[in-house]
């Protein structure tokens, strides 16, 4: 159970926090990211290829905005709780789901900023007993014209007992 009552957590639903500042999409970082995920597509490396395919510049891979977790792009008061202190026990926090909606591809030269809204908090009985607490965070990434580029939805789960499924991804437990 989180260290705070569920009613207090749910009272935060609808609150919005600035979570991403000055996320500049850079060609070197895009290529490094594409390398790391094993995608050899020249689209992520060669501006001529990108332009021939109708892009304004080299585009970023679909999940590139994970880069926003680097301190460089985080306001000082934003930690792994994405600006919301829900009292989750970080050792039992799992990453349940990650979803994106795209208005357009992010491309090299974009400078993105992001605001995160806590959109849902709910509890459910875990399969191995204990209450699982779900929190859904929606981040809108906007360009320098304040136009929406993409929306990212992250679902985090505080498990009721250790090793509750799903347990595939603990990447926000104590990373970075």
């Amino acid at each position, binding site marked *: 159970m989180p260290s705070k009552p569920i009613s207090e957590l749910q009272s935060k639903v609808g609150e919005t926090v600035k979570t991403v500042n000055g996320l500049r999409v850079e060609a070197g*970082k895009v290529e*490094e*990211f594409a*390398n*790391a*995920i*094993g*995608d050899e*597509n*020249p*689209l992520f490396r060669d501006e001529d*290829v990108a332009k021939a*395919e*109708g*892009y304004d510049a080299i*585009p970023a*891979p*679909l*999940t590139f905005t*994970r*880069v*926003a*977790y*680097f301190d460089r792009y985080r306001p000082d008061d934003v930690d792994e709780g994405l600006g919301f202190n829900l009292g989750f026990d970080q050792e039992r926090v*799992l*990453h*349940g*789901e*990650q*979803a*994106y*909606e*795209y208005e*357009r*591809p992010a491309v090299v030269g974009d400078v993105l900023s992001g605001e995160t809204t806590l959109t849902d908090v709910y509890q459910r009985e875990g399969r191995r007993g204990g209450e699982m607490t779900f929190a859904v965070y929606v981040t809108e990434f906007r360009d320098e014209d304040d136009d929406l580029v993409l929306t990212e939805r992250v679902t985090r789960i505080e498990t009721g007992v*250790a*090793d509750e499924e*799903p*347990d*595939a*991804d*603990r*990447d*926000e*437990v*104590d*990373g*970075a």
Partner: protein
Amino acid sequence: MTDRYERSLYAEDVSVGDTSPELVVEDVGIEDFVRYAGASGDFNPLHYDQSYAEAAGEDSVFGQGMLTANYTAHLATDWFGLDRITAFRARFKDRLYPDDTVTVSGEIMTVSDTPTGAEVDADLVATNQDGTELVTGTVTATLPEHPDNESE
């Protein structure tokens, strides 16, 4: 530029039940987890420090869930084209371990006509060599009509 990346998929080409080419990522290793850590900023030591992982009660380090999600995103990108994808979702089901081989595949679930082509929804799944699902996902793409058909 190879044929693999040519834009070949148009609204006329897709039907419910069509399957994607398979994407196979062979013999994933700790180096891949480290590379993804550096690229993404996810430096949780559970993904590369064996003694840390054991102290945390794990048998082995394991990959970032988002790394497996990226293999499914990679397939979706190759299949439909990056700028045609309007939505992508990944759900984390099980862990990716060193020496795993990941196979990603997709199947078209719905095709809806639009004024300029079609909107397509597909299911995606990444499995390991034992057939265990690591990540399931969905992708939505908007495909134009084939250019040869536009003037007719």
